[in-house]
């Protein structure tokens, strides 16, 4: 049983709140997702099982609606609206992404009503059409891409604009529930997806607001006001690693040399003597670096070492052997590759989910956090259309 067990959430199906509903459901909340007749438009989002488009075979729907129950209500009819009213009367939380003004609740003092709109419930622009891409254009897109600025900036993939809005929705709902424990009253939780994207760009905002610094995009690393050194390396197997940073102290040089020697290529590295000089340094300060050409060569030798090993190791070997010697680096996995990674496997991260309707067991992404007393749990596959209609009850 998760930490939110016994908390009833009614989710009016919408792409902006699907992830929020899943997070709540897998923390133990009893989430009922409400779809229109024929099913939510999200069921038309691919990819589909075996590439056969069908409302019950959308992998988008499968992923975002696990652990929820589903009902169908036609909100254009009095009967459908009455059914929704009955459902909402049982709820602690309503989660929705409607155009402002479409959905109103009255007479339910304890209800936490969370709306996730493009610009917030009081901004007329929330009635304009939007997608994940237009939300992320608020700021994240400007900061991602390549050194070559003739190439367009890049949207980070995976609908992260919806995810960020959903993260704030869940934090807002939980804050309102905690306040309700004290006051007894619910309230409106108003989330702006555009604002959420805007405050999720690190130095992109406060660099400008506080220090007047405008940043531009750089390949595979932080946007900055000036061009920084690359941190991505192509390894012997053609795959990439994030090489981490260069040493900042003598100890860092020692760790890198130990790493080098562990690979068996230690004697072949031509700049070894510079690395050895580096081990005699203390903490390397930026000012010293700028004024000392020898120190610059020593630090450059560490970059050479990273490139030297990248040319001889696979991306995974680079990552594992570096980290085993206390040198920070990261293999750049494709999303599905984490499922086979020994660490993810050892921690039981991939989760098998039964799809009895297809006679298949499917591996799903697992938990973002581990609660020791009230475990996260992916409880069931996503609901079929109207699968839990009994929850609407009788008029």
């Amino acid at each position, binding site marked *: 049983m998760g930490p*939110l067990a016994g908390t009833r959430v009614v989710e009016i199906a919408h792409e902006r709140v699907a992830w929020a509903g899943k997070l709540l459901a897998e923390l133990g909340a009893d989430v009922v997702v409400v779809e229109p007749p024929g099913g939510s438009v999200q069921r038309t989002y691919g990819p589909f099982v075996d590439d056969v488009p069908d409302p019950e075979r959308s992998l988008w729907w499968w992923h975002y609606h696990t652990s929820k129950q589903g009902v169908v209500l036609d909100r254009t009819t009095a009967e459908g609206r009455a059914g929704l009213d009955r459902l909402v009367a049982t709820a602690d939380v309503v989660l929705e992404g409607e155009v402002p003004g479409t959905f109103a609740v009255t007479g339910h003092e304890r209800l936490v009503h969370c709306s996730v709109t493009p610009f917030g419930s009081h901004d007329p622009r929330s009635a304009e059409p939007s997608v994940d891409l237009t939300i992320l254009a608020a700021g994240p897109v400007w900061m991602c891409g390549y050194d070559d600025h003739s190439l367009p900036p890049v949207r980070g993939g995976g609908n992260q604009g919806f995810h960020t809005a959903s993260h704030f929705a869940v934090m807002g709902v939980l804050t309102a529930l905690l306040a309700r424990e004290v006051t007894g009253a619910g309230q409106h939780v108003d989330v702006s997806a555009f604002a959420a994207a805007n405050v999720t760009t690190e130095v992109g905002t406060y660099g400008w607001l*506080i220090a007047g610094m405008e940043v531009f995009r750089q390949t595979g690393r932080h946007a900055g006001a000036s061009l920084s050194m690359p941190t991505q390396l192509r390894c012997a197997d053609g795959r990439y690693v994030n090489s981490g940073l260069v040493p900042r102290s003598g100890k860092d040089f020692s760790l890198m040399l130990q790493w080098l020697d562990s690979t068996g290529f230690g004697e072949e590295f031509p700049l070894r003597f510079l690395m050895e000089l580096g081990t005699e340094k203390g903490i390397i300060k930026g000012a010293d670096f700028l004024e000392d050409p020898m120190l610059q060569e020593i630090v450059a030798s560490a970059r050479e070492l990273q490139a030297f090993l990248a040319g001889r190791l696979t991306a995974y070997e680079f990552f594992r052997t570096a980290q085993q010697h206390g040198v920070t680096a990261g293999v750049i996995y494709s999303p599905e590759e984490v499922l086979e990674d020994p660490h993810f496997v050892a921690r039981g991260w991939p989760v098998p989910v039964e799809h009895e309707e297809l006679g298949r067991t499917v591996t799903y992404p697992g938990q973002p956090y581990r609660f020791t007393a009230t475990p996260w749990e992916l409880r069931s596959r996503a609901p079929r259309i109207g699968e839990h209609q009994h929850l609407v009850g009788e008029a």
Partner: protein
Amino acid sequence: MQGNASGHRGALGHLRICDLSGQLAGAGATRFLAAFGAQVIRIEDPVTLGLWDIVRQMPPLIDGDRTHDGGSGFLNHNVEKLGITLNLRTERGKELLRDLVRVSDAVTENFAAGVMERLGFGYEDLKALKPDIVYVSNCGFGHTGPYSRFKSWGPIAQAVSGMTFQSGLPDREPAGWGYSYMDHTGAYMMGIALLSALYHRARTGEGQWVDLSCTEAGASLNGPAILDATVNGRPLRRPGMPNSNRSASPAMAPHGVYPAAEDDAWLVLACRHDDDWARLAPVLGIDEPAWSSASGRLADQDRLDASLAAWTQSRPRDAAVAAVRSAGVPVAPVLRPSERSEEPSNLAWGLWPTAVHARHGARRVDGVPVHLSATDWRIERAGPMLGQDNERVLCGLLGVSADELEELRATGVI
């Protein structure tokens, strides 16, 4: 003593967090609670001037201040938190931390795995001090498993989780994220973990430990791509992929980032369905029957994108955006930092509140993209100078006398 650094109590004024976290992956979580009135007390090390938290001194610096109180990130990430120093190498320092844990609802940290145990403040130790304590830890790979000792920061968690790979243009190296998306997002996940554990505790009296691995949190954000691999055997690592300016899930075309006439100016637009395209095509002056259906457009995206780019490139960005917007099609300019700081919807939201820093005065900072109708957030004080609230917290909350405070200073405990 309740409420945040400005004394605002809001939604969470009844809660106190003993916060050993920092940087962004930790500080970003407790920031949300502090804005909503929780009393977040940050503990920093006086010996190293708090520089475990590298953003204390990391550029961009405020007015060129090169000290440990000059980092703009620290000022921003720690609004409305109280800041104290405790030297945990000393027994008195540990005793004071134990006293603080006893009067706190939660303890938060984002050290490497194992650090808290070595300090004598692992979960079992914390529970002995306060049986119902909520303890949330956030590190790169979690506290168990073969990589638990591996080190990480945002870009590393992004790399290993699959987040870096899925962001890019075809047949090029990954573009990744131009900032630490997983420091932000790890912090949000940490905030969710903390708030939900506190909610469980409020209802049952039961505390617990939550172990958060930033890499696992990131991997959970690629669901449809992972299911495409596990169900259909189609990995994202395949020729022509990723192409994250396009949208495969949901499938849309056109969907992309297009150039405008000005130098390095761009706009985004997307057609969700055939109706969007039917309204957009006349604006663009395109009459191509094969493109009237989504399948036709999806099959011919390179040509489609080239046609769109030819149209957008011959227009100023904002004129192109206005024309597409008038057709009722999703569109937006790609905004630079300097532009979005003055963007009308952000200003109307109150997204950049002014917070006062003890040395650097009033500064605009990130606000919160959530408004609560009854108990909203307030941000008025910027991140604390090192040890700024020692007297307020040690004397006002933990009962240290004025004389002892002097002694703690003199003996290097604070």
